């Protein structure tokens, strides 16, 4: 059962990722990305990372991807197939293949050792929501706080950048167009 589920999810993950790149229509690309994300969450579930699987489903599939779909639908990206003019065509595949090579090296070198075993020696409850919650409030309290501060800062930054869209009032003196100008 686990094996079957694994292969279904693995094929879905790889197939979804390939489809994102190959499909010319942005709308279908986003849908393929949804398939990829959902397959990943199944893989997480098989690794006993229940919290991660749920978070993946809710945050990515549920929120981020739906947002993408809305944007693509509203902006009308579906009418204009992605045009990759300007970037050398060979560059992306070369980078992708070299990345694949590096990761295969990493995983093949040490990850395959555990292939026949039941995986790492983990404590009971590792990766469970309660465990993660406890870690966030104890050992990773500081990173947790940094993350919340980061969100505040991102909001401030977004407000700052939004001023550009509001439009600027005309300069009070012509010299100001040089940035600082004379005062």
């Amino acid at each position, binding site marked *: 059962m686990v094996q079957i589920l694994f292969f279904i999810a693995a094929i879905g993950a790889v197939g979804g990722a390939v489809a994102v790149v190959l499909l010319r229509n942005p709308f279908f690309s986003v849908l393929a990305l949804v398939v990829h994300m959902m397959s990943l969450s199944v893989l997480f579930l098989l690794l006993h990372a229940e919290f991660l699987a749920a978070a993946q489903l809710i945050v990515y599939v549920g929120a981020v991807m739906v947002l993408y779909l809305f944007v693509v639908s509203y902006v009308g990206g579906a009418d204009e197939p992605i045009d990759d003019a300007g970037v050398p065509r060979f560059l992306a595949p070369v980078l992708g293949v070299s990345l694949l090579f590096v990761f295969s090296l990493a995983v093949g070198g040490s990850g395959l050792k555990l292939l026949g075993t039941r995986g790492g020696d983990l404590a009971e409850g590792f990766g469970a929501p309660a465990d993660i919650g406890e870690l966030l409030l104890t050992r990773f309290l500081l990173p947790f706080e940094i993350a919340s501060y980061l969100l505040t800062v991102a909001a401030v*930054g977004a407000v700052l950048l939004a001023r550009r869209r509001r439009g600027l009032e005309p300069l009070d003196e012509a010299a100001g167009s040089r940035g600082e100008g004379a005062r």
Partner: protein
Amino acid sequence: MTALLPAGLIEVAVTAPSVEYGPMLPFFVLAGGAILTLFVSLIGGDVAQRLLTPLTAVATLLAANAIFAIRLKEPDPSVLTGSLALDDLALIFDIIFASAALAVAVIAWRSKSLREVGRGEFYSLLITAVLGMTLLSSATDLVALFLSFELLSIPLYVLCASDLRRNGSLESGLKYLIIGSLASAVMLYGLAMIYGATGDTNFYEIADMLAKTPAASDPLLLVGVGLLLVGLAFKASVAPFHQWTPDVYEGAPTPVTAFMSVTTKAAVLALLVRLSAGPLAPVRDNWAIVLAVLASITIVVGNVGALRQESLKRMLAYSGVAQAGYLLVGVVVGTGLGVAALVFYMCVYVLMNLGPFAVIVARERAGAGDGLRGMRGLGREAPLLAWPMTICMIALAGLPVTGGFIGKVLLVQAAVFGDWAWLGVMIVIGSAISLGYYLRVVAAIWMPEHETASDPSAPVLAGADPAADPGAHPELIAVAVAAAALTVALGVYPEWLLDLARYAGETFIALGV
């Protein structure tokens, strides 16, 4: 209640972590100061806006700096909440960050774009970036490392795009965001692999684990370390990951360029020093040679790239790439002397880089732009700007009687004593090439005026109000003169900073357990 919970969960006894509020004080000051600045900027009135907000920011940075300075050399390398070590190595770099931010707060004070974009937001983001850097220099945990790296980066992305009048600024911010996100993603991959290979995120645990098992040949770990270094190299603009640097530096508002050109490098190097003392020490043989090759490529690419630049900001960007190469040598050597040289050179670099940027801002405000042309006749027109610029250029080139010379000598000495003599040779060659462009600036400053008159592009200056002489910006002159004076002071009497640098070196050795 018990019945509702699955068995096993109830026994989880959560003990609250001991948060050392006292030692954490500087971080609280910075985090609170950033928020306070935002609130102060809500107070109405032009005077309040023009004075109170910058003053709040400056006060915050001064307070943080004072705490850092007081805590320096206190024998208390405490680990805070398990993910921070505010030891002397971190404190020295923290003082660099906060001081650079202070100078930049002054440089940016009367900038017109600041009013449009909102003073509160600008200063708040500046302080937050400093907070991210101070956290990064203290981080002893991979999770804290990544999050403080982001806390440093995100304000800078926004600050780069903060000049609303110029499209170049938005382009700069966007470019930096995309490249920076790529760097973060690569680094995160690396961190995940390091965690996978060692089973822990804590620096000390990783070091213990690697010391016990001969994991040096573990490809997972090595690929992880490699990706981590690539991510950091992007941020520190180490060649061949430097391509974004000139464009971003040119497009960003000049005060922001001044800030990030010095501090992001310092933050990444502080982190590299800490990593090389702890978790990466057992696999030093694997990465030191890679970093050495990167350093020499960086020195050559930066110096050669700077030769042909007409925009001073682009030139300083390439020069910054080259300086990153020099500084990396200190990490590669990895001895106490290497770290001491790195710390000394870093301090001097901050001074001799902030000086020119203050002058460039002054020239931009006078309507002369940031080109090499804008420097012509400066010697006659505004000697108080011309002299600091000249001194800083000479210092950047590494000529004697300046701190830059002492710093380079220290780096070469560290390289030779650490059996990396060829890196020392690279530094010398790089400095020789760099004379080609630093002296061009000096020549432009002191060239006779008639050269400018025949210049076809002179009408660009026609709109400049002759009354808007640089003397109208005393705070810029103050920053430039102070930076130049300190650079010379460090060249003539380097002992006090040398002591501090040597102390940092000893701290580094002590870290290595």
